[in-house]
């Protein structure tokens, strides 16, 4: 008996269809495998996607959107946690964009702090004048953008008081800092006026040592480490975006915590 006797025309069509399906399956699997290897290859080629100009422009745009999001989240009345003396990290880590033997040595006898830009009051300050103002201290957590954190004790003048004495326009958008080591950064006005933002002159009860930013460091427990400038020599109140050393290279500008 031949096969023909048992298969009608319709059955034959179905058999052909099934066979075609079976043929397709390996082809599909191959396609899937190729997609996987393509993905793997793209991964192995590394960071090429980060070098693309349009991708970088998009990332910068989102980063500046994140500045706005953080300004929105920032509560001027919310205080960063404080800690007991026993929790201070010893030794507190030295951290800068250079090695410890390159720390600038500022001469206190000739040192003057200048406040410029949108200020109507006292523009030139000596260290003695700053020491004569009411002093506060705080034990807070310094959080680095790298992820590590350390608890330290800083003392100094509330920055809002200095801005008030300088007759600063507190409706201005930015306060910029220029430092003896050529570092620069800038912050938003609400953070500048925050109760825990101190222009610090001491560390752990001693005059601020050079490695921690002599003659002064602006300490903000509401911002990441790179936003806390050391060795400050000039402060500018302005409405024009000042940027900063790390910010110009791609670190987020607001850098809030």
């Amino acid at each position: 008996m031949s096969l023909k006797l048992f298969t009608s025309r319709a059955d034959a069509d179905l058999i052909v269809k099934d066979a075609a399906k079976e043929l397709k399956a390996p082809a599909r699997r191959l396609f899937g495998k190729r997609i996987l290897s393509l993905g793997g290859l793209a991964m192995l080629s590394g960071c090429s996607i980060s070098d693309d100009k349009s991708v970088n422009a998009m990332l910068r745009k989102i980063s500046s959107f994140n500045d706005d999001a953080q300004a929105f989240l920032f509560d001027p009345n919310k205080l960063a946690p404080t800690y007991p003396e026993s929790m201070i990290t010893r030794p507190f880590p030295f951290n800068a964009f250079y090695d410890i033997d390159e720390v600038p040595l500022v001469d206190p006898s000739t040192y003057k702090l200048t406040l410029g830009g949108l200020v109507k009051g006292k523009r030139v300050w000596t260290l003695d004048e700053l020491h004569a103002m009411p002093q506060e201290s705080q034990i807070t957590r310094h959080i680095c953008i790298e992820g590590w954190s350390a608890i330290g004790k800083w003392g100094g003048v509330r920055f809002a008081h200095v801005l008030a004495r300088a007759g600063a326009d507190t409706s201005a958008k930015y306060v910029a800092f220029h430092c003896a080591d050529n570092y620069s950064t800038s912050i938003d006005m609400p953070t500048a006026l925050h109760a825990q933002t101190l222009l610090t002159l001491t560390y752990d009860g001693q005059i601020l040592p050079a490695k921690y930013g002599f003659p002064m460091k602006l300490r903000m427990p509401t911002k990441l480490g790179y936003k806390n400038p050391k060795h400050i020599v000039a402060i500018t109140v302005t409405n024009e975006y000042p940027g900063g050393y790390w910010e110009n290279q791609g670190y987020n500008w607001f850098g809030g915590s």
Partner: protein
Amino acid sequence: MQPQTLTQTLRAVQPLWLRITHWINALAILIMVTSGWQIYNASPIFKALTFPAALTLGGWLGGAIQWHFAAMWLLVGNFTAYLALNVATGRLRRRMFPLSIKTVLGDAYAALRGKLGHGDLTHYNAVQKFAYLAVIVDLAIVILSGLVVWKSVQFPLLRALMGGYDNARAVHFFGMSFLVAFFVVHVAMVALVPRSLVLMIRGR
């Protein structure tokens, strides 16, 4: 393989919204994990563990942070939509429940003996249900601990819940580890049952 009924064939096993949110989530996780590894390398929690540069995204710390804090919006937005649609359509209840420890252990034992069938893709076995629910909870933990690492001063309650800033970093790390472990098993299972990949693309 069990024969599929006509209705099962016509109605998408994985609805369109689920397939879209699944693949957006896959992309977001890929960016978050690879950029997160680069950020981790800047200050490793465990001195002995760093991630190979070839597997990281961003090129340097600043670039990685830009990627991480861009993709976080994609991840959180998509995860919220995924959860909302899952609850609103009743899919979560229909496909993930009922679920008991007994059935999970039973199916896990069957799987270990190689006797857990994967023939009917319209139903999840108990191990699948458990794994999918666990990874949803894990994603929520990763997002919340990440929020504490990013904004520890602004979210004091969440910070306390995570056990402080440093602890939140550890929670974030282990949450990522579970996510990556899930990903490895998930992809291995897809390789074993390739039809499930077609299902997540075409819906049927």
